[in-house]
């Protein structure tokens, strides 16, 4: 059995969450202090405690408190921690602005700025750890489905790569060009098409197929599909694991890839078990009156989630 959950967390996950929780509690404490005793705090950091200062500090305190609670609820999420970094920037801006004001206690203010800068550094560290972003390496997309046909049949269907567009709705075509290589054409939601060449790097009939884009591809991706027989061989668990290359566009694509792969697997199951991609009126007729009988075909090609 494979272990589930992201293995990358093993290294820094626990420590990262510890630091995040510490910062969360710090936020809550500071926020409460800012709300409860803004003037005392203003004196401590050496700024003018008259006028609107009290109100401003209370507002900052409310933000701090909300931010802290956000972190404590999800200590592993990076967003609330990055919000703290943004908050630090706001605080620093206010403090820098206070330099120019009269009735400022410069030494205390410098101390305050140094403290905020120090905490900001910790915030950045915690945020980066929480995101686990070694930037540009998206997590693999893993999806599975059970098909009530023997593994050999499902494998054979998949191995005929030119059939893939029948159920992979983002693909326009796959052409086998010999030597285990194939040319793929996909259409983007924007209407543009992209091409890449891939080769089968591991092929075990009835068990698994692994493919990878050729070197130098502009849209690097690699994937593996495994076929595991169950119920005495009458059904097959099909599991797809895909990694989309590096960089921001791959990271964005990965966000949608899970739903896309799941939809593809559902259509694969439909084709193998029922003979075709199953269509409802709504799946061929978009816009208002979606569940009305369809108009002329051709507006959209296939059913299911785009």
């Amino acid at each position, binding site marked *: 059995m494979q272990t589930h959950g992201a293995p990358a967390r093993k290294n820094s996950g626990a420590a990262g969450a510890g630091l995040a929780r510490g910062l969360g509690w710090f936020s809550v404490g500071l926020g409460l202090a800012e709300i409860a005793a803004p003037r005392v705090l203003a004196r401590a950091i050496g700024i003018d405690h008259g006028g609107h200062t009290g109100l401003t500090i209370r507002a900052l305190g409310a933000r701090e408190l909300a931010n802290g609670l956000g972190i404590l609820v999800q200590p592993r999420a990076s967003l609330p921690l990055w919000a703290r970094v943004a908050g630090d920037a706001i605080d620093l801006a206010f403090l820098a602005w206070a330099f120019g004001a009269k009735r400022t206690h410069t030494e205390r203010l410098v101390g305050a700025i140094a403290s905020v800068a120090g905490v900001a550094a910790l915030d950045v560290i915690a945020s980066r750890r929480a995101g686990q972003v070694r930037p540009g390496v998206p997590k693999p997309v893993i999806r599975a489905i*059970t098909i*009530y046909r023997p593994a050999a049949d499902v494998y054979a269907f998949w191995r005929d790569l030119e059939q893939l567009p029948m159920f992979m709705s983002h693909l326009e075509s796959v052409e086998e060009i010999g030597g285990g290589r194939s040319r793929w054409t996909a259409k983007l939601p924007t209407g543009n098409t992209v091409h890449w060449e891939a080769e089968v790097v591991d092929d075990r009939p009835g068990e698994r197929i692994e493919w990878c884009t050729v070197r130098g591809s502009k849209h690097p991706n690699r994937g593996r599909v495994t076929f595991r027989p169950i119920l005495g061989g009458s*059904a097959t668990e099909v599991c797809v694991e895909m990694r989309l290359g590096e960089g921001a566009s791959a990271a964005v694509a990965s966000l949608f890839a899970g*739903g896309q792969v*799941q*939809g593809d697997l*559902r259509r694969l*199951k*439909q084709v193998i*078990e*029922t*003979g*075709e991609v*199953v*269509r*409802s*009126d*709504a*799946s*061929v007729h978009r816009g*208002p*009156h*979606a*569940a*009305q*009988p*369809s*108009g002329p*075909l051709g507006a959209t090609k296939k*059913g*299911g*989630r785009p």
Partner: protein
Amino acid sequence: MKALCWMGKRDVRVEDVPDPRLLNARDAIVRISSTTVCGSDLHLYNGFMPSMEKGDILGHEFMGEVVEVGRGVGNLRPGDRVVVPFPISCGSCGQCLRRNFACCENSNPNAWMPEQMMGHPLCGMFGYSHLTGGYAGGQAQYVRVPFADVGPLKVPVGLRDEQVLFLSDIFPTGYMAAEMCDITPDKVVAVWGCGPVGQFAIASARMLGAERVIAIDRIPYRLAMAKERAGATDLINYEEVPVLEALKELTGGRGPDACIDAVGLEAHSHGAQYLYDRGKQMAKVQLDRPIAVREAILACRSGGIVSIVGVYAGYVDKFPLGALMNRSITIRTGQCHVHRYLRPLLERIERGHIDPSFVVSHHMALDEAPRAYDMFNHKRDDAMKIVLRA
């Protein structure tokens, strides 16, 4: 063709829309002869089901004549008279092979939507929101029937439409509710809700041998039908007597052996609980008013069965999980796996064990469908089951 379209909350209209066409090889086109409004259509009508879109054709209880079949349909020919089950089932996925037809894994092109809401996909259904696939419904002159080689039942000559029409949903649904109760003659069954499904649950419980069936509702004409036509032995009008006390009185303090919820998410009640659930529903923080099922659990004898066929949509609170667990109560539920019951129940109709047409209260033309919804929704003119001629 003419079809009843959902245009918004309590706004349905008969519109001219394009005729359906074959989209898959296993499709058939059926010219509707009779169709009807289901209690669950009222959940759509009243705007309680998410994912409805303006223009959606409603209707999942219908029958008619096959006019066209795809090349993958070997068992039907134009001219065949058929009644069509409301769940759309492929017949070959894991669930269909287990005969859980209403859990078909292939028939919902929008599977991802219910998967987000409910953890796993739902099957496709006719005219029942986009969560169940966005299939056009059968309150229309024509309908496209996917997997026509699996679902439709050919109707023998000699049976009138209204004797077999309800095989599409409410008769099997009521029957399944009773079947889930493991009925033996000595068992007492209580049925919440005396709408058409409740009537068939009562009649089926009697058919399966229950000697005592207690019907619970608040509307006198429904209670009267439960007794006179469906065969209920005892009646409880919950606006007149407290249900839990009345049930204890009728069962020597034990509670019914099996409780059927044929009400679902628009339950009525009185007092604070009703206002609480109604308020949450109106504020859109809760889709369901689970009043009947709560009461059914509390009423059920320890070790008994609560059978739920009333439709629910989302998450509920104040659910008596403690009673359920500590008193060893079993819950059985599901959308009806209609395909399982078509032939056995047709046989019962042919043998005269039951004539399902007893629930019909009105006949109207399809053009009058909006009025039918309004009447049924407000229980006007003793509306029970309104049959529309297309």
